[in-house]
């Protein structure tokens, strides 16, 4: 595997871990729901095992997250520049920068109504 491929896989692994945590699931629960071994889930998140295309779809469906976001990350998401979300978020004076980042990341990652 080339360096760029490794980075890409590791990026997906990080996003999968974040999406799992935001879904409220443990690695053990995911393993059971997807009929995988728990170490497999751990290896995928650590970036030490590659992902098949169908597995990306399974994770996306389980976490209700866009496949495109899982594969490409925050910058490539279709809703990343949604001005309404940015505006609504800016209007919220009480939202801390950290919370704003978490909220916007989740909104960008969510599967669309049409998926």
């Amino acid at each position: 595997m080339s360096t760029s491929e490794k980075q890409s896989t590791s990026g997906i692994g990080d996003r999968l871990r974040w999406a799992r945590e935001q879904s409220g699931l443990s690695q053990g629960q995911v393993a059971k729901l997807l009929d995988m071994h728990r170490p497999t889930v751990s290896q995928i998140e650590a970036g030490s095992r590659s992902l098949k295309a169908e597995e990306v779809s399974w994770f996306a469906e389980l976490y209700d997250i866009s496949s495109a976001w899982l594969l490409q990350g925050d910058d490539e998401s279709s809703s990343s520049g949604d001005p309404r979300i940015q505006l609504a978020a800016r209007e919220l004076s009480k939202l801390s920068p950290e919370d704003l980042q978490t909220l916007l990341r989740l909104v960008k990652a969510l599967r669309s109504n049409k998926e």
Partner: protein
Amino acid sequence: MDPWQTAKNTALRKAFETRRRLAVSREDPVNVFDVCAAIGVEVRFLDCPSLEGMYCREPRTAIVLPSTRHRPPGRVAFTCAHELGHHELGHGTRVDEYLAGGTTDQRRSPEEVAADVFAAHLLMPRQAILAAAKAYHLDIKSITPEQTFLIAGLFSVGYSALLGQLTFGLQLLPRGRFDGLKRHQPKSIRSVLYPPSAKSGLVVFHDDYPSATVDMEVGDFVLAQEAFADEPALLTSHPRHDEQTVWEAACVGQERLKLANGREVAIRVSRRGYVGAWRYRFLPEEE
């Protein structure tokens, strides 16, 4: 008619229409998270202490709420109903910030006022409040802090939300009484009802009032007038207190309990301060 009054009237009609659509009588309590699931609105809880709530229309219809690590469960439930109001009333994506009770309508947009009215009447319609008062044999005009807490629990809303609805939404409670009751803290009331519950949640079942599905967290306490017909799987028994049976939520999951009089209640237990999607909130942990 001013825009705020028009928005309120629309919201009131929409709350009753939503109940009708889900075949829920105006006399019965509803679980707001079940309502969202039935309508197809995803609900997520985030570890975001500064977030009050968000309704997101695009890219996906979703409600995002703070975890109960950061807000009391009753307040989170009311906020969820408020965000659902934005959805049902056709509003766009919006992030809400908390405004303390007593803020005048004119300081808020008609859409925000409408979402509050929707939430209050979806969760606490007049007939349901009167039915609950009848079950407790109480006169709302002279309701005590403990009784207010118990009735709020029947509707899974916070103490303040119920007081607001009794006073401003339904005009069943005089303003002077409201001011007196507002001075009491739910934590102190829980201490009176069952002292160990001061630092957790407290659910009180009433034999003669139908419960919607009751959501609780590990460590919350349950009071019931009589023992359950079968041994609960998710609750552990504590010594009786003040002529009531006492239980503590011990593990994550869902079950139906049969009360002594034969009536069934559904309970769901989650981890404390759960962060995640609502649909996985009660999924038992794998060993």
